């Protein structure tokens, strides 16, 4: 799969007078990228910049050459987003309708929507959930449905914002397995350091800046050291 480059150029984000990210410039080209850091360091803001959910106060974010400020619609097709709490991401009362929701927004014909829903459910081995009411799903099932709803849109990059926070060990392992299988680029913001072991690159965010950018083992060591300081 051809993965579009994501570039942040001198990006700063401020909420009122509080700087959340400060002059961040990076290029994201790898297939597996992790983002770690303390609470409030700016990880979630960084992740939301990547599909235009948050726009930079200064600087620019480009996805495949498109600026998120001008092309947010196209970019959201390219960059899917899995939120920390899947319950709030599932919009429709029935699972299969929810997975079809994003496809309807793409104006795909009904037959294609149905086919993609079936394929995605099958890919994640959750076909048995197709007709379930969303509120009856367990946390793990909800996270899988949230991932399915994003996968059905066939984005080339998927951003996960702390996807394992609400999961037990079994579901965490299942999600980790699914992330490892993805042909898409996965950018995972997490406190769960184990999930990053096989990643190609990990960014450590501290006080709105990138304090470390490198391979997972070194990044985790850096983060641990910073946490103990």
């Amino acid at each position, binding site marked *: 799969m051809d993965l579009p480059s994501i570039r942040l150029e001198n990006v700063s984000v401020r909420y009122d007078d509080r700087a959340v990210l400060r002059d961040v410039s990076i290029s994201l080209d790898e297939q597996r990228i992790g983002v770690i850091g303390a609470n409030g360091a700016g990880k979630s803001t960084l992740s939301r910049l990547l599909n235009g959910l948050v726009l930079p106060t200064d600087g620019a974010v480009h996805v495949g050459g498109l600026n998120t400020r001008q092309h947010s619609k196209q970019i*959201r097709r390219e960059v899917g987003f899995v*939120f920390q709490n899947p319950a*709030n*991401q599932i*919009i429709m*009362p029935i699972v299969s309708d929810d997975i079809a929701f994003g496809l*309807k927004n793409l*104006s795909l014909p009904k037959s294609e929507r149905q086919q993609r829903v079936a394929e995605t459910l099958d890919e994640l081995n959750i076909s048995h959930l197709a007709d379930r009411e969303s509120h009856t799903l367990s946390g793990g099932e909800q996270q899988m449905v949230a991932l399915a709803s994003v996968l059905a849109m066939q984005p080339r990059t998927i951003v996960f914002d702390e996807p394992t926070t609400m999961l037990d060990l079994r579901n965490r392992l299942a999600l980790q397995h699914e992330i490892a299988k993805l042909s898409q680029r996965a950018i995972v913001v997490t406190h769960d350091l184990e999930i990053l072991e096989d990643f190609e690159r990990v960014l450590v965010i501290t006080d709105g800046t990138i304090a470390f950018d490198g391979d997972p083992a070194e990044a985790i060591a850096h983060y641990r050291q910073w946490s103990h300081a």
Partner: protein
Amino acid sequence: MIAANNSSYLARIKPGWKFGALLVLSIALYLITSWIVLLALFIASAGLLLSARVDPKQLRLPLISITVILGIVFVLLGIQTDWLNALRSVLRLLTMCLLAYSVSLTTKFEAMLELFQQVASPIRFVGGNPAQIALAFSMTIRFIPELKKVYVEVREAQHARGLANNPLAVTVPLVIRSLKIAEETAEALDARGYDSDPAPHQR
């Protein structure tokens, strides 16, 4: 109640026909005064519901609720008017409920929303957007159980702090958490490419 994966003959009938028939039959029921005919129609509607192969577990609670409510209606009407009139009214309501269950439990939620959008399409002429109204309706159904969960959590937390009987202690966190859910869901709608202007084929 939302339709599960129903594969009966009723599920294969177009939603427009089913809802149209429900509307016509509901009106017709009020034109019938013979309790024997109403009883026959009630038996027929029960047969229809049974033939729809609906999961009995899905029906148990609503049927119990409706029986209790109509039981009260029967007694009150019987006392206020006469018992035959009460019987006719209850038979009409029961028949309508069973017919409505037969329709709603054999029609997929998505199909109901599509039908709603078609029926509501004239509101475009006064600036309304049926797709938005349909989405609001489906999200209401989706989030009622979530808000109920939040309410139970907040109540439990306040109970643990000895504040279970203080309405303010329950209401304030409930409202704040509901707003947080609304904010996150709006963000999810954005992330999933929702466009408040409907796509051409949905217009």
